[in-house]
């Protein structure tokens, strides 16, 4: 089911959370809403879900105007950052909740719940209570619960934010696989650009209530439309007027190739890549990323003088940043 957000504005008192935001989400896609805290991404998600009412604009689900509809009529599945598990119900009852509300038959419910618990790998946990599960397991339960009612859209609000780094990585991959299998339109919110880049087909970058850019991960990385997007989506260096990616910096000992003079302050070996921290003559820092081979060739040590060229500096006209 496709989602269209049209010119949505949402204020909380003096604070404008969403400023005339418009967005199209294709049926069956996996989209990330990415941005810093307070940027409006959670608000947008909740407006789509019907948990918040916009002050202006419309939300269409599958072409139908859903703006006036309450959350429970929209057919959205929502997964919260802190799971929102029904603490007093077992895992089975949690997952079955939506089905019980819709008064499905006992057999139907049982079958569906078993199927979902299998899907999320919580087969043996049906009789347990949320308090007895780990964070990752609780979130998987929350997902199963949301999927039980066969939502038209699956919305996840920082779903892995409360989990350990390892569990987060596991669940990211798992979400991707799940989406491939189930194929429901999915939108998730994150402030972690790595997560967005890894999981999503399409990323929407939000800042201060406005959409900065929409595109596939690669497009955002290679062709950012402004400084904010570029610096949010990956590491950057400021070189004069523009921004350069660390791996777009070329170091050499030869002053003749034209480059800026810089002193090596630190060489960090990160496995197969090497990060070279440099200081320019005006004391501003630079961070370059080179391959092991390049590092071996240059034989860099702290204190060395090298010359820095940028392959692809990006300069954005003032009104874009």
């Amino acid at each position: 089911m496709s989602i269209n957000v049209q010119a949505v504005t949402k204020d909380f008192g003096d604070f404008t959370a969403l400023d005339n935001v418009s967005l199209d989400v294709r049926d069956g896609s996996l989209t990330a809403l990415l941005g810093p805290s307070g940027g409006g991404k959670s608000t947008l998600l909740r407006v789509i879900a019907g948990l918040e009412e916009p002050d202006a604009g419309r939300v269409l689900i599958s072409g139908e105007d859903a703006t006036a509809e309450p959350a429970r009529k929209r057919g959205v599945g929502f997964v919260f950052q802190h799971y929102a598990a029904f603490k007093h119900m077992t895992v089975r009852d949690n997952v079955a909740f939506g089905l019980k509300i819709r008064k499905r038959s006992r057999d139907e419910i049982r079958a569906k719940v078993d199927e979902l618990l299998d899907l999320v790998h919580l087969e043996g946990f049906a009789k347990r209570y949320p308090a007895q599960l780990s964070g990752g397991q609780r979130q998987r339960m929350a997902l199963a619960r949301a999927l039980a009612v066969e939502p038209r859209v699956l919305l996840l609000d920082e779903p892995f934010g409360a989990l350990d780094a390892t569990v987060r990585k596991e669940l990211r991959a798992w979400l991707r696989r799940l989406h491939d299998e189930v194929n429901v339109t999915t939108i998730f919110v994150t402030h972690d650009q790595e997560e967005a880049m890894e999981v999503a087909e399409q990323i929407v970058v939000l800042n201060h209530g406005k959409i900065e850019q929409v595109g596939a991960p690669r497009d955002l990385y290679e062709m950012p439309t402004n400084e904010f997007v570029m610096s949010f989506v990956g590491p950057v260096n400021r070189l004069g007027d523009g921004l350069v990616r660390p791996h777009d910096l070329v170091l050499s000992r030869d002053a003749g190739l034209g480059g800026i003079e810089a002193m090596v302050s630190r060489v960090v070996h990160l496995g197969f890549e090497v990060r070279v921290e440099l200081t320019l003559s005006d004391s501003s820092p630079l961070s370059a990323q080179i391959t092991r081979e390049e590092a071996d060739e240059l034989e860099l040590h702290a204190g060395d003088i090298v010359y820095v060229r940028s392959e692809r500096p990006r300069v954005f006209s003032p009104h874009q940043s």
Partner: protein
Amino acid sequence: MAKYALRVTALSYLGLLIALPVGYVFYKAFEHGFATAREAVTTPVAQHAFWLTVEMVAIAVPLNTIFGVVCALVLVRQSFRGKALLNAAIDLPFAVSPVVIGLALILVYGRKGWFGDWLLDHGIQVIFSVPGMVLATIFVSLPFVVREVMPVLREIGTEQEQAAQTLGASSLQTFFRVTLPAIRWGVAYGVVLTTARALGEFGAVSIVSGKLAGQTETLTLHVENRFQAFDLTGAYAAAVVLGLMAIATLLAINLLKPKEGVR
């Protein structure tokens, strides 16, 4: 050494102030034998007093529970003008002496009171009869459920309810399937406290009831009545009945308290 001194002091204080007096009354009640005590407590007047007390509790507690849950929901989940006032008003029964509450009721519903004449014209007698006492009991035991449920509501937050909404539940379904079970220990504890307070109410009912034995005398008033009539055994026996009810309440309190922590 200091530890023992502290312990002994604390325990003696408690013993002298609480344990001994209460234990003594139990002893005195049965001093002349179990049969005598039982007789004293099963006189028609005493029985009437007992059942009247039970009746008032049976009315006041459910009403206050429903009111309490609704009020807690409103105070925690909504904002509106006058909310602070409502909040303070809930605490009023705590701050006001029972006799003042009785006085207030008389002033409003009594013969010369605000609504009093109108009510009497319609044949409804509030003061010096059971309805007034029920009102008094409701008022003094009002805050407990509200105050116990509010922090629980705050702690569980709104996410579970929002989740239920996204899963298709209506407000009513959400309330009964999600909210209520989540707050049940707070409600239970509040109900126990409400019951204890309603059982033990004396001052307000004393003023409002007119103390007509056999008609408007609760068990607490009965204790006083027997004492003033120099029927000590009767007074002690009735006190024991109330005391047993209090101990039952205590047990309930202690069963419910740890549960809050387990949550």
